[in-house]
């Protein structure tokens, strides 16, 4: 019985790792705004992201976002930004790195223009530089 309980605890631990995004304010943005008619949500798990050394990719793109949508997402991003260890903010975009846990990096990317709003949450072993070089390379 003890062994079974231990097994369950391990599996629950794994599930918690898989749901690391839980507990972040931006989770509400994904929940609330992904159902909007102009929204596109993308979720990819570790099995599909091996080549990027990432374990979760979750994005929300809203075409022609309304003022209310922009404000809502921005407020949620700001709430998570308070615990960020690295912040990069310009008029067009925001980038935050959240505290590292268990060798994993956690990033929030946010970009808002009048044409589109993109909110991306990423977690994985890859560092910001590695991710950056990977996706900038893709375009070249």
């Amino acid at each position, binding site marked *: *019985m003890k062994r*079974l*309980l231990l*097994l*369950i605890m391990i*599996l*629950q631990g*794994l*599930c918690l790792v*898989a*749901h690391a995004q839980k507990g972040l304010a931006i989770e509400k943005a994904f929940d609330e705004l*992904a*159902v*909007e*008619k*102009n*929204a*596109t*949500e*993308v*979720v*990819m*798990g*570790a*099995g*599909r992201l091996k080549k990027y050394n990432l374990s979760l*990719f979750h*994005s929300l*793109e809203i075409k022609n976002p309304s003022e209310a949508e922009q404000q809502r997402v921005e407020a949620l991003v700001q709430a998570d930004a308070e615990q960020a260890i690295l912040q*990069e903010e*310009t008029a*067009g*975009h925001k*980038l935050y790195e959240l505290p590292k846990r268990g060798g994993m990096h956690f990033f929030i*990317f946010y*970009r808002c223009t009048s044409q589109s709003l*993109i909110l*991306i949450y990423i977690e994985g072993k890859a560092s910001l530089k590695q*991710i*950056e070089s990977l*996706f*900038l390379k*893709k*375009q070249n």
Partner: protein
Amino acid sequence: MNSDLSYWEALAERYFLAETSEQEEAQLRKFLCSSYAQDSRFDEARATMSLLHVCRSKRRPAMWHPLRVVAVAACLCLAFFLGWHQYRQHNISRVRIAGQEVEADASLLMQKQMTEMFNSIDQ
């Protein structure tokens, strides 16, 4: 219960000689647990029977008690569900437009969004 201690003493002796039936052993066991058997003559029989009882219960635990079966089945179901859930989360690749899941290349969308994002940062 027979209160004649000499009867029980004789039975205990026969027990050590392996001449008792299972029914007699059960009677002896019951007697040894009673207040009549406090006499030191029965210490040896009590100790032996206690030891045997402990050894027997360790060798054959009540494995298939109905509640235990239910608990094990519930644990296995939970473990299976969590494992399946974990596997599904691990391999998830989903695109939803307006809340509706659609057939689309999530990898391509991811690359497009990430490239756009880093290009805007780079500028």
